């Protein structure tokens, strides 16, 4: 029942699905996590790419589409106690170390 042109169409849609998935889940577009220390960007990557970013005084963890600070060497520990951020525009700020973690 399927003809040659049908196979081409199915292949084209599949390719589109795979490429858009690769783009969406590799940090190519959409929500990205930016970590700045002392006004310098030290890390940018997709919100959906799990990893741990170690800085001089803080450790930032990106996990399952949420970001939190797991460790900080400062006294107040405000950034560590901050609940994980998941949405565009949210940020965690560590004033003593001048670290800003943002979802853009």
């Amino acid at each position, binding site marked *: 029942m399927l003809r040659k042109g049908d196979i081409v*169409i199915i292949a084209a849609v599949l390719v589109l699905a795979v490429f858009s998935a690769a783009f969406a889940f590799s940090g190519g577009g959409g929500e990205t996590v930016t970590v700045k220390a002392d006004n310098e960007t030290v890390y940018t990557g997709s919100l959906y790419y799990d990893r741990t970013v170690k800085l001089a005084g803080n450790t930032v963890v990106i996990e399952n589409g949420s970001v939190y600070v797991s460790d900080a060497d400062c006294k107040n520990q405000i950034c560590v106690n901050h609940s994980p951020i998941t949405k565009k525009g949210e940020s965690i700020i560590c004033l003593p170390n001048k670290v800003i973690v943002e979802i853009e």
Partner: protein
Amino acid sequence: MAKKITLYALFAALAMIFGYIESLYSLSFIAPGIKLGLANSIVLLLLCGGDFKGALAVNTVRIILSALLFSTPFTLLFSLTAGIGSTVIMRLLSGRESVSVIGFSIAGAAAHNLLQLCVASAVFGSAVWYYTPFLMISALISGGVIGALSAVIVKKIKTNRYF
């Protein structure tokens, strides 16, 4: 002419009922906006008969009336763009010998979803493009199912000399 208009009216009514039945069994829990596209089988049927004008007319009437009855003018923007765009895409492919109804049904479904994403990204911002992979896989499945269904219907109905 009168027979044709009556037939179009019947098709438009049937397509609206399909759309209504679909809205009762929403698949949106999988991903926002995912649906089977039962109403598209009517458009496919008309395109198989080589009646592009009829397909476009029935689809446009269905979309406008459904929006008036069941949804808001805001969603009309989405459905009208996608509905007309996908009908044109399917028309371009339906004339080809190498493409069966399953093929242009899938192409139409993919075009429909992509056009809705275009409108959505203009309204809500580019974050909506994250849905592209889900919507493409959904187009493949729903377009394939509706295309196969239409192939069966076309086979049965052709002997009745409607087209």
